[in-house]
């Protein structure tokens, strides 16, 4: 405490090290035996490293099947990692055994899901849904206190305390997502994992939810892990961004750095693909090809079949992350200094 403020090192709230998760998607044993096929393994998350500081929003972006949602589910404990560590404020919670030793930590993290129509039990009243964490953890002495708290929570997310008596089907998609947020906030968590919370919503409702999430973050000092495929949304909400491709983190950086000076060719491709509202006549070069099947990823850098800069080494070796200003990137082209300048830089 005697140290001056400027030398204080911020300890990350969550640190993920070499996180891996494989899924066995093989056919049943008998089928494999008869058809003479081997096991098929999907490396959904293949060695991911990042850390999130208190009060920050860290976003993971990528196309479908890149493993971003799996990372989210690994962190909240819906899946168990195949390898690697998840460290929450110095406590290891990777394996389910370790996680079970720390129910307090499980209580400090919560999740908001993508589909507001599937994330609320259709047979429960809204009040019971929101109160579930309170009742299960016995956080409050009696029912009257629970009801009062549920009313507060509903008001906090912009609904009426009277809505507690209704059923989920009486609400629109945006309102359901508010209920989902109220439930997540009930146990007063500090860390929220948001898995595509607005991608099922219309733009005007998306704006409401994003504003609400930002307001809550400011008011309650929340830390977010934000999962999305929408770069514009990510740009708007996050402090740091990680870009995932086929189970690996190919680049991460401060939001401004990443969007101003993207390094990895895949990041550049994603930025290029954002439809241009300003219609400045920017020339777009859609990258050919599609995401390869995660069942059979290409060797070396998994992006090389689509990459304009790929060479022999890219086809052979998996690139290691190298630190750059404001973040890190895993690309041989960056390492070998043969990356063309990005448009914004070229124009300047």
């Amino acid at each position, binding site marked *: 405490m005697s140290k001056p403020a400027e030398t204080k090192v911020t300890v990350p709230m969550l640190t993920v090290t070499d996180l891996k998760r494989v899924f066995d998607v093989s056919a049943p044993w008998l089928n494999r035996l008869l058809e003479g096929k081997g096991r098929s393994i999907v490396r959904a998350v293949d060695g991911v490293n990042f850390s999130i500081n208190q009060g920050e929003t860290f976003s993971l972006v990528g196309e479908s099947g890149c493993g971003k949602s799996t990372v989210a589910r690994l962190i909240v404990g819906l899946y168990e990692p195949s390898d690697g560590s998840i460290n929450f404020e110095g406590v290891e919670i990777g394996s389910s055994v370790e996680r079970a030793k720390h129910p307090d930590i499980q209580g400090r993290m*919560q999740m908001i899901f993508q589909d507001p129509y599937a994330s609320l039990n259709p047979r429960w009243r809204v009040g019971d849904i929101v109160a579930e964490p309170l009742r299960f953890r016995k956080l409050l002495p009696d029912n009257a206190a629970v009801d009062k708290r549920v009313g507060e929570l509903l008001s906090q997310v912009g609904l009426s305390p009277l809505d507690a008596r209704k059923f989920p089907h009486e609400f629109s998609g945006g309102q359901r997502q508010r209920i989902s947020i109220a439930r997540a906030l009930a146990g007063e968590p500090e860390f929220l994992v948001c898995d595509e919370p607005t991608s099922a919503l219309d733009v005007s409702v998306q704006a409401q939810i994003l504003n609400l999430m930002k307001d809550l973050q400011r008011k309650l000092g929340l830390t977010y892990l934000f999962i999305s495929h929408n770069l514009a949304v990510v740009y708007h909400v996050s402090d740091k961004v990680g870009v995932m491709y086929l189970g690996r983190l190919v680049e991460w950086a401060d939001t401004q750095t990443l969007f101003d000076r993207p390094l990895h060719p895949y990041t550049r491709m994603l930025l290029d693909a954002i439809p241009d509202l300003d219609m400045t006549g920017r020339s777009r070069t859609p990258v050919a090809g599609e995401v390869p099947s995660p069942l059979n990823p290409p060797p070396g850098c998994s992006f090389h079949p689509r990459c304009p800069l790929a060479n022999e080494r890219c086809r052979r070796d998996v690139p290691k992350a190298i630190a750059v200003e404001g973040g890190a990137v895993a690309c041989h082209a960056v390492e070998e200094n043969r990356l063309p300048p990005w448009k914004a830089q070229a124009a300047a």
Partner: protein
Amino acid sequence: MMLPTARVIEFWRKTSDSDIYWSFTRSKLVMLSALITLIFFIGAFGAPWLAPHNPFDLASLELSDAFKPPVWEDGGDAKYLLGTDDQGRDLLSTIMYGSRISLMVGFLAVIFAMGVGITLGLVAGYLGGAVDSFIMRVADVQLSFPAILIALLVDGVSRGILGEARHSDFAEAVLVVAIGLSYWVQYARTVRGSVLVEKSKEYVQAARVIGLPGPLIAIRHVLPNVLGPVLVIATINLALAIITEATLSFLGVGLPPTEPSLGTLIRIGNDFLFSGEWWITIFPGAVLAILVLAVNLLGDWLRDALNPKLR
């Protein structure tokens, strides 16, 4: 807190506004089925109060009244509306008491099958893996035998264990278990299928993130959401269970003649069918057929009404 009458009014307002009630009032056939089922239920369960005679009261039986034809035939007696059987029992009363036993056995068997099937289906679907494989393979094996065979097997085994004399004391319970065990597979399969769908939904994942233990999630969250299709099967199964009971009793392995169900009545009457006393077997048979048809029609309607795709 609402007053009870206010609650009833509120309940009725909601019911009469619901899609199910609307689809109910749209079909005359369904309403007719419901009416018939209701009349039979009242007749059966109200038998001790509504029946004109008590066929089990041996003192009131007069053998001279045996083989009376229905009242509109020559030699009919106004005392016996549908005639009498070989022991002089009033056929209408016997049918009412008989349906009571048939329905009771049917209901209990369905509840038993539901209990076993839902529990196993929920366990199999929620746990998955080896437990799931084991339960479902057992179900597959059982499905390859006709239900009546399973019921006969259970009945035979229980006779072996209990002995013939004690068996008749437990005849009803044995029937319930025998029929119940032959129909649980359907429930287990349906529930397992729905559980697999519901389990992957995000509200279940949300409950897991909150930290709820598995069994609690399965019972509190998953179970209420898989009961819709079960209700439909239960209705259709009620008809099946009644028929199975009748078949077993007809074959003579069901309820004893002292405690006749509809099936027993048909069997007894069968002996006299060709000697001219047709009514003894035809009336119980007709009651059985109409009851089963009405319940089945109700089940079909319920299945369609609860299926959002057909609405």
